[in-house]
């Protein structure tokens, strides 16, 4: 058994830490405050291959693995969780399902543009009445000759405003429940497809979270992703992979909060000495670090299993559950150790605590992860 990174991963970590520190961190507070999508960062990431890490070289990607990809989301999120989720939704929720389910033509058409970052990807599953119960899809796709006519809407879609390609889900056969859902690829600018309301959020405020509206959208049949009526399985499998990305985001947020806190407690003096001298501070830090390192092990294990092409759904659920709850706990403690200053926007831990919360909700709430884990135990 070997817990060490490969030589390539060591080199990659050196690059991504440096990139996050110099290019991403300086914008984090502004992006949050102004609810601004950091498009310039996406362009910089695109230039050096961060938008296509696990995409094979033959489709224009970097040909890296999922461990590297998770390290990228971790390091980006450690300084800016908005940037982390932009990469995660793009890679795991759009490029990955096309890679895994697309026809050769679809792969040739979409992957090089996604991998190069020329196009940004998004994923539309959630609807106003279909959240945790994703099977309750109300968006419909009715066959019409060589086309499907799509009607309905999606909410809370990450990257929505800035994306060029969307993987979406709709009912193709209402009588069949989950066996009547299909996946489609839809491009920005398709007539009848528009972006609706943008959410005002607690955290990850720079990521554009919007509604997608489909009004009699005519989609040619070649835009069907995977087989007809197999969309629900595609959605679930895609979310398994996505959970590794979100777990990595949570892990990064926790690590970022620890980094800020360690610096702060050494500087802040009360009762004539740095607050790092108090045993409570030391013990809190020890717990924060231990849980964060445990999260990292779970994330890397799940990513490694995906790379080895062995089943990883339960591992993905565990790492997402644990890392998200750890991020919430660690950022809460980080604010506490900063005292009143931590409650202000002068210090990044305030933002980190707000950012952490979403990791317990999207791509399956913590309750859903517990259902996945226990269902596997009791089957």
């Amino acid at each position, binding site marked *: 058994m070997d817990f060490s990174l490969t030589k*390539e991963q060591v*080199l990659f970590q050196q690059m991504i830490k440096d990139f996050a520190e110099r290019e991403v961190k300086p914008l984090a507070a502004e992006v949050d405050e102004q609810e601004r999508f950091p498009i310039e960062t996406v362009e910089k990431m695109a230039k050096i*291959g961060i938008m296509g890490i696990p995409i094979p070289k033959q489709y224009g990607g*970097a040909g890296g693995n999922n461990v590297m990809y998770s390290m990228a989301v971790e390091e980006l999120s450690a300084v800016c969780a908005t940037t982390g989720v932009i990469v995660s939704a793009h890679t795991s929720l759009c490029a990955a399902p096309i890679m895994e389910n697309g026809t050769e033509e679809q792969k040739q058409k979409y992957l090089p543009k996604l991998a190069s970052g020329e196009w940004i990807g998004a994923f539309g599953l959630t609807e106003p009445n279909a959240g945790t119960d994703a099977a309750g899809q109300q968006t419909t796709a009715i066959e019409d000759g060589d086309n499907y006519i799509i009607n309905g809407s999606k909410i809370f879609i990450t990257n929505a405003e800035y994306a060029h390609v969307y993987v979406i889900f709709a009912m193709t056969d209402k009588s069949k429940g989950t066996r009547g859902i299909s996946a489609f690829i839809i491009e920005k600018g398709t007539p009848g497809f528009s972006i609706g309301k943008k959410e005002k959020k607690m955290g990850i405020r720079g990521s554009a979270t919007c509604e997608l509206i489909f009004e009699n959208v005519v989609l040619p049949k070649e835009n069907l992703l995977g087989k007809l009526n197999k969309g629900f399985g595609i959605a679930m499998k895609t979310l398994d992979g996505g959970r590794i990305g979100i777990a990595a985001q949570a892990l990064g947020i926790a690590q970022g909060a620890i980094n800020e806190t360690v610096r702060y407690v050494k500087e802040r003096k009360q009762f004539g000495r740095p607050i790092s001298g108090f045993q409570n501070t030391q013990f809190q830090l020890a717990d924060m670090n231990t849980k964060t390192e445990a999260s990292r092990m779970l994330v890397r294990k799940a990513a490694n299993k995906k790379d080895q092409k062995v089943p990883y759904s339960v591992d993905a659920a565990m790492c997402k559950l644990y890392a998200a709850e750890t991020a919430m706990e660690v950022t809460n403690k980080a604010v506490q150790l900063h005292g009143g200053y931590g409650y202000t926007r002068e210090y990044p831990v305030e933002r980190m605590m707000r950012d952490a919360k979403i990791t317990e909700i999207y791509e399956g709430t913590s309750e859903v992860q517990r259902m996945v884990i226990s269902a596997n135990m009791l089957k």
Partner: protein
Amino acid sequence: MDTTCRVLTIPIKKEMKIVVCIKQVPDTTEIKIDPKTGTLIRDGVPSIMNPDDKSGLEMALQLKDEQGAHVTVITMGPPQADLILREAFAMGVDRAIHLTDRKFAGADTLATSHALAGALRKIEFDLLITGRQAIDGDTAQVGPQIAEHLDLPQVSYLEDLKFDGDKTFTMKRHIEEGYQMLEVEAPCVVTVLSSANTPRYMNVGGIVDAYQKEVEVWGFNEIEVDEKNLGLKGSPTSVHKAFARGLKPAGELYEVETDEAVGIIIKKLKEKFILN
């Protein structure tokens, strides 16, 4: 009948060949020195590519991007120095050479430059780039010494460089009072400042491939140099004493008008008996 045959010479744009000398240095502004031996303590200090060298490499890669060039990097150093050669691959170089041999150990700047020159005699190039200086040794001697060993023109403290595609480089050189513009013919040696550019990040795809590529490892037998110029034997420098410089006390800052400032300075100088 006029049968004169006119020979048109169309200049063939040949691919420029660039070699960049890169050195692995400890990533610290506060270098620790072993008080007994006077040598650097490298254990536990993360190592990086020397900043001036990285800018030199960026300059080479920009020439490659703009007009096409074949870029080779070369380093002399212990086996761990392999890391900066992989980093160079991930940034986009075509070839990497690692000079390593017991015979090179204990080299000072002169012996280092002899070893590098010995290797460079085996490589064809139009342009040799070195950093201005390494952040650990800080002598700024190696580049100019290589140029002397190879009897090539040299331009130090380079900020910018253009190539006409045939034989001539136009260079912008930093001097104390401003800049000097020079035209130099290939082959030549330049030493580059880290202020010349911002080096690119390693490319993710390049990182994935970095360890699939071959680093050529060269020892004494692969290079062309007199053995007596190498290693400890070839190093005339002897360290008299190495010590960490004491910290300067924090300065005092005054934000005042010029007249008042002059008064304060004179008073301070008198207090220190520099003026009387």
